[in-house]
């Protein structure tokens, strides 16, 4: 082992350069340790503490850069040469990487070889091609873009599987990898609950509820909405579950999806059953109640899913605020609604939130209409007027055609909100407000005028119109949930504490006679 000590006079390195040079210097063949730092007295002490003692260091001044390289005897010269080369190059390299935008993925990968995940949100017609390139280059991929063919999806997912890579999507809106939210995501604590979701807002909701119950998320893997179809066969879901099973930071696995194809559901449950970790499954709207595996719990909604997950990490239930349904509140609202106000109108940005509210209503009522109804007899199109209990997923393809998602552009929902208030049979309008990365910067603020207008219309004909809101977000989001809730409360909106409660409250508010 040979120690090489060098002092570069008046060499000013910012810590970014220092970091990248140190990383590369330590990667040089033959180097066991390379220490680089400015020669302040305190830093000299640090070196002394790790056994580096040298007269050159004693003589160095704070404006000098200290370089200490420990390397194998026969390799020290090569190592020094390599470090010198890195030092000589730093200027051009450090500045150019900051400025350059790359034209092609191949170019980006060549310039930044340690990039490891590509987030693709270009037009769907081009997304598959770029995703394929990224996979071939060994990068994980999240495809936010929709309008990718199912054939491409299968090919990409098989390619990803063969290479041990993530292929989240297409049409994957949400992921949290290593604590970093990708596309639409909320700022949540890191923790031990791993989530694999085929539905974006469902995953967001569970992550937020886990955070709210004091838990945290290890990873949130999105699969795209088609993953659990018979054609795709849950390729990403299964790889995702296996990755979480192997991840030491994940203690419990949560799966959320619309009801999968039967054979796919069996397969997914089988993989979970063999994962060796407790698992919670929320197939929203599925009639299944038993998973068939001791460690795999089937739950009916997003909030029960989050609760079960947090409890499975060992949290004591008695310490949690479960936000049980507020029965006096239900009675109070019922009393304010006129007898003819018997319907709920739900206007949603989040598909899963819409789904969950619709299923809550379906458990009690028959005339439940939606653009995402499973029963074709009750399907409403984007241009159809609402009827009976209506739940609209305004992020559905029929509504978004050619316009941004309602999480970003709320204009369509604002018009619809005012229009629903014209119907004297409407008692409750339920709405979600999604916060977080990717979402509108103030979803509540832009909706307040329409809420006031809707309420005023009802008041003009002597009715109370109940507006029920749910804000999907956390105290760490920007804007924070408390800010959005306060705005809604000031506008007379009743706040639900979760997606699950939103559906239940809406249903109960309009329940009359038999349904009570």
């Amino acid at each position, binding site marked *: 082992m040979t120690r090489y000590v060098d002092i570069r006079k008046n060499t000013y390195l910012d810590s970014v350069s220092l970091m990248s040079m140190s990383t590369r210097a330590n990667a040089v063949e033959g180097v066991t340790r390379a220490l680089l730092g400015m020669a302040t007295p305190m830093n000299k002490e640090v070196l002394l503490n790790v056994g580096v003692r040298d007269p050159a260091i004693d003589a160095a001044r704070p404006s000098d850069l200290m370089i200490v390289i420990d390397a194998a005897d026969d390799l020290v010269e090569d190592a020094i040469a390599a470090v010198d080369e890195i030092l000589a190059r730093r200027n051009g390299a450090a500045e150019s990487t900051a400025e350059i935008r790359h034209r*092609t993925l191949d170019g980006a990968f060549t310039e930044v070889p340690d990039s490891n995940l590509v987030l693709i949100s270009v037009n769907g017609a081009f997304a598959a091609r770029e995703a394929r390139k990224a996979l071939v280059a060994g990068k994980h991929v999240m495809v936010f*873009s929709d309008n990718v063919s199912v054939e491409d999806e299968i090919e990409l997912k098989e390619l990803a599987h063969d290479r041990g890579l993530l292929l989240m999507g297409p049409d994957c809106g949400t992921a949290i990898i290593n604590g970093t939210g990708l596309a639409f995501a909320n700022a949540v604590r890191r923790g031990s609950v791993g989530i694999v979701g085929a539905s974006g807002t469902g995953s967001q909701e569970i992550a937020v509820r886990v955070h709210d119950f004091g838990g945290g998320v290890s990873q949130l893997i999105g699969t795209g909405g088609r993953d659990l179809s018979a054609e795709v066969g849950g390729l990403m879901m299964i790889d995702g579950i296996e990755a979480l099973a192997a991840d030491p930071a994940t203690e419990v696995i949560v799966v959320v999806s619309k009801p999968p194809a039967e054979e796919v559901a069996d397969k997914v449950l089988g993989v979970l059953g063999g994962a060796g970790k407790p698992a919670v499954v929320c197939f929203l709207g599925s009639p299944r109640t038993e998973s068939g595996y001791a460690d795999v719990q089937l739950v009916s909604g997003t909030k029960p899913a989050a609760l079960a997950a947090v409890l499975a990490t060992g949290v004591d239930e008695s310490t949690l605020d479960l936000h049980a349904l507020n029965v006096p509140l239900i009675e109070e609202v019922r009393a304010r609604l006129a007898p003819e106000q018997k319907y709920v109108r739900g206007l949603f940005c989040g598909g899963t939130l819409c789904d969950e509210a619709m299923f809550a209503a379906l458990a009690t009522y028959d005339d439940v209409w939606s653009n995402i109804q499973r029963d074709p007899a009750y399907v409403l199109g984007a241009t159809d007027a609402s009827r009976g209990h209506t739940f609209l997923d305004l992020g559905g393809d029929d509504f978004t055609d050619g316009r941004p998602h309602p999480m970003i552009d709320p204009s369509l929902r604002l018009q619809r909100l005012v229009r629903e208030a014209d119907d004297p049979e409407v008692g409750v309008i339920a709405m979600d407000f999604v916060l977080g990365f990717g979402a509108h910067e103030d979803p509540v603020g832009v909706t307040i005028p329409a809420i006031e207008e809707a309420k005023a219309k009802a008041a003009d004909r002597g009715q109370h119109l109940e507006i029920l809101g749910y804000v999907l977000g956390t105290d760490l989001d920007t804007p924070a949930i408390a800010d959005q809730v306060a705005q809604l409360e000031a506008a007379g909106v009743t706040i639900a504490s979760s997606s699950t409660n939103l559906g239940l409250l809406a249903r109960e508010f309009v329940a009359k006679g038999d349904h009570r």
Partner: protein
Amino acid sequence: MSITSLFSTGLKPVNLGLDMFAEDLTAQGVAPVRMDWTPPGGGDPEMIAALGRLERPEVAERIDTANEEAVGRVLAAQPFLEGFGQAIDTVPGMTRTTILHAGPPITWERMSGPMKGAVTGALVFEGLAKDLDEAAELAGSGEIAFSPCHEHQSVGSMAGVTSASMWVHKVTNRTHGNTAYTNLSEQLSKILRFGANDRSVIDRLNWMRDVLGPVLAAAMELNEAGLDLRLLLSQALHMGDEAHNRNVAGTTLLIQALTPYIVETDFSTQEKREVFDFVASSDYFSGPTWMVTAKAAMDAAAGIQDSTVVTAMCRNGVDFGIRVAGTGDRWFTGPAQQVVGPMFAGYTPADSGLDMGDSAITETYGIGGFAMAAAPAIVALVGGTVQEAMGHSRTMNAITAANNPNVTIPALDFMGVPTGIDVRKVIETGVLPLINTAIAHKDPGIGMIGAGIVHPPIEAFQQAIITLADTVGAESRRSAP
């Protein structure tokens, strides 16, 4: 990297698409690599389909191997100046009634004004017509064979008009044994290659035939070792040339290398003095030399099966043509473009002819516009800033297959010039090669009126990619051994 190992590594994302996602990532302390992405092929489904066929792994692998071979040959090529000779004696296929011209094939009727001016001037110079009117008649009579320089192992700057008795460089690529030719610089702006053809032009051509050519030829006969042009070129770039629009250093180096031999020849001091004065009259003297250097190197890659590397870019003032290694002698063309740049006093863009000349062989090889960063002194001449010049050279990396380690740019940390334009990358990125060039007046007889920057028409590359997809990417080739 497996999924599990991703979980234990720092996330280093690339954001391809919506900028707001990149901003969110940055706000979370994970600044992504950002892209300046445009849909491949400009979003044209036909282009995307063609690219797709060439991107199938087995096809792509075959192309990559072929391109490596093609570019490898270009980089390995060592063009040496072996001597000078008259076209009739040296250029393959040359006859007394042949006129070579720049660019892809073109008939007399379709030729641009400057090229017609050059052709008629050359016919008078050769004694085939007594005046320009008669020359024009002769040109249209069918008795004159018009042919692209490129189809005769040659290149010609601007109009590229080369006739039987003109003297040409003989440059041999000693690595692969192929030879290339180009005529001599006429120096001043009112010259045949820009379409000028009055008496002064013909007189100069006569002097070049009778004195300049013979002196240079005799000098090179004394130099048995030949001149390593790649070495001179590389030095010229280090001295601030990009070897298309700036040739100050290259001309100095070239004449410095020739001088001892010129001095040794039997010509009179008066004649030698005329030669030196002529060389000193314009920095452009070595311009054709670097063109033929590039041609000798690029020809080494011609005909490499399956390769998508461009081996020639040239224009005849009407059409812009390219050739691709994997499609051999075939031309892919599109309309020649207007050159954008500063004009000499008194001229406006309305006076300028369309892009013309074989000089884009320099960009094909990686110098000229591709090496703009080497020549900050002329950024104003082509209407840009030093910063843009640096950017141009870096940008060309996006469409090339390699960097030439033998010809480097000091200011870019000795980055090798971007070499080997890949048709696939041009179509995918929409980045077109950048060409530095001169502007000729649109009418015959006037000459150079400015200089600037021009790009090839995308159509030429579109035709090429479709042909490549139909041949290299054909389904039937899948099972080929």
